[in-house]
């Protein structure tokens, strides 16, 4: 009887596919559907729902993808940025997959006997064992530590698989970077399709990061039809669309999702919050500072990329100066001051969030005290070596929080009508697999 039930369950179980496009804005997808750049995406939209999605705050890949994979907010999963500060020292460290405190959606699926393929999701390095295959994404350094099981490594090497675009190529030339973007994308797509076709799986997650890399350096090109790289940008998205077509023609009865972890918009100015803290007397730095490790005595606050502000509390940090009963006052003062930053008379800060407005969970103590959100065009940065508040660098695109993409191959009538959040994606995928959503996930399935 129980044996029979198992077979029955197998027959009923459905598979789910998620394709990630790092940093692809929903507005850009809509535009490329309208102007014919993405015909496959147009077909997909006609058969399903293409939605604008909110992502995590901060809206950078490490936080956003971790929120995706755990369905949880950073107060639970513990990843607040690409860099973090050790409270007992100010020492900078780079959080890795081992710092993630919440269960991943593929671990939940594994527990139910579902096999998962997880390729190029940022912040999964080093690869942790799973029932299935995982090749870690940004910031993976060593292919051996990025890959589970190890037996896959020779196959990756034989395919000349590349973990990531080398963004340093831009120092040679934009052409060199564009070539690298295209080659990396080709290799990525080749691997994704091969594993899709040849490996058994119940949950397939494949992320393309080349979209993000392109947009960091070429975001100005798409706004300007006369730009040298305008058609190259468009051609790149034709390739993305072709890949989406290759996936969609393989679909049988799978649930298919497409998502991005944040949106993108052109940069007007980069804004260095640590400069503002120095100029306003909250932060003191040693000579020629390289990072916040070079904080000097007498500091009351410091900032980390992108808009994270930490109060230098006595007892929490080695040279903390702010008494615990004074934290609320200093926080409010900085919040007010930051809110008033302007450029040519126009305010550039959209909102300053306090910690408890954004984060809740067991690791909320490690959260920034404030998270600053700018208006489009003003990219908040954590650099400490800047002599002016605003400047331009080589980057032409910045992330946005309210313009991520979510596509589900189900009609709107099958879905909730409120705006999705990135933490809703994992519950949606588990729901599609016929599994319950763990309580430790903050998000909810998009299926009604």
């Amino acid at each position: 009887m129980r044996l029979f039930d198992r077979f029955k369950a197998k027959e009923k179980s459905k598979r789910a596919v998620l394709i990630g496009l790092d940093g692809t804005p929903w507005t850009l997808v809509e535009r490329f559907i309208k102007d014919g750049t993405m015909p496959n995406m147009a077909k997909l939209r006609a058969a399903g729902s293409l939605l604008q999605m909110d992502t995590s705050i901060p809206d950078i890949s490490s936080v956003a993808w971790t929120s995706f994979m755990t369905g949880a907010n950073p107060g639970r999963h513990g990843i607040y940025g690409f860099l973090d500060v050790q409270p007992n020292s100010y020492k900078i460290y780079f959080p890795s997959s081992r710092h993630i405190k919440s269960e991943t959606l593929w671990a939940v699926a594994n527990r139910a006997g579902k096999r998962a393929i997880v390729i190029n999701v940022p912040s999964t390095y080093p690869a942790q064992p799973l029932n299935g295959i995982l090749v870690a994404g940004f910031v993976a350094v060593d292919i051996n530590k990025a890959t589970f099981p190890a037996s896959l490594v020779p196959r990756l090497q034989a395919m000349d698989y590349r973990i990531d675009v080398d963004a340093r190529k831009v120092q040679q030339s934009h052409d060199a970077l564009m070539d690298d973007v295209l080659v990396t994308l080709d290799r990525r797509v080749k691997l994704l399709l091969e594993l899709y076709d040849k490996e058994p799986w119940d949950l397939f997650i494949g992320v393309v990061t080349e979209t993000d890399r392109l947009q960091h350096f070429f975001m100005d090109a798409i706004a300007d039809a006369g730009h040298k790289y305008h058609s190259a940008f468009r051609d790149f998205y034709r390739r993305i669309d072709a890949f989406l077509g290759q996936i969609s023609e393989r679909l049988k009865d799978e649930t298919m999702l497409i998502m991005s972890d944040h949106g993108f918009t052109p940069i007007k100015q980069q804004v260095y919050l640590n400069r503002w803290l120095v100029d306003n007397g909250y932060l003191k730095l040693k000579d020629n500072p390289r990072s916040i490790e070079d904080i000097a005595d007498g500091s009351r606050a410091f900032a980390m990329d992108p808009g994270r502000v930490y109060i230098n509390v006595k007892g929490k940090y080695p040279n903390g100066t702010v008494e615990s009963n004074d934290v609320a006052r200093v926080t409010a003062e900085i919040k007010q001051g930051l809110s008033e930053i302007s450029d040519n008379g126009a305010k550039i800060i959209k909102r300053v969030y306090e910690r408890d407005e954004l984060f809740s969970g067991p690791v909320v103590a490690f959260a920034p005290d404030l998270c600053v959100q700018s208006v489009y065009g003003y990219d908040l940065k954590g650099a400490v070596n800047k002599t002016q508040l605003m400047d331009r660098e080589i980057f032409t695109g910045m992330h946005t929080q309210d313009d991520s993409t979510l596509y589900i191959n189900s009609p709107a009538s099958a879905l909730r009508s409120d705006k999705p959040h990135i933490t809703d994606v994992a519950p949606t995928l588990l729901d599609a697999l016929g599994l319950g959503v763990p309580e430790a996930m903050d998000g909810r399935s998009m299926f009604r």
Partner: protein
Amino acid sequence: MEGKGLTLWFTGLSGAGKTTLARLIEIELRNRGHKVEVLDGDVVRTNLSKGLGFSKEDRDTNIRRIGFVCNLLARNGVIAIAAAISPYRDIRDEVRRENGAFVEVFIKCPIDVLAERDVKGLYKKAMAGEIKHFTGIDDPYEAPLAPEIMVETDKETPEQSAARIITRLEELQYITASSEPDSYSDEDAEEVRRRLEALGYV
């Protein structure tokens, strides 16, 4: 490496994965410089316990012998891995009392899954009555009440189970954590920093 000796006792039904996991753990521990010996129930019954049957008394004798050898090995700094069905709780607990450092690993897998897998063809025979005293079919299996480690081999791959056993042994401080850095090595961290700088994150 001058490691501490230990008896690592795998218990579970036939086909649950005791031998497979014992071999994976053996390799990992050897790679980390430990002295390791595996006492596999099937093998022990061809030499040390040759002639013993499957009555409760004979099973107990078999387990006592394996436990005795594990104790000798562990006293000499060896990690002795016992992989035997060892269905009776009282005798496992007796071995635990006799041996110093003892870690019980429950290799859990539902019997219907094992019967379906039936790698050695034994369940079919046992269910047909061709094998008597088969644990889980016509002989009891008393699951551990508080094993130090439990892995569920119907829900995870052998590699996953092995990784969990190793992690737990690290937590219990029987073995030191892998020399592989918890996060990035200094060299790797510099590379990470350069890549993040290239995208403007530092």
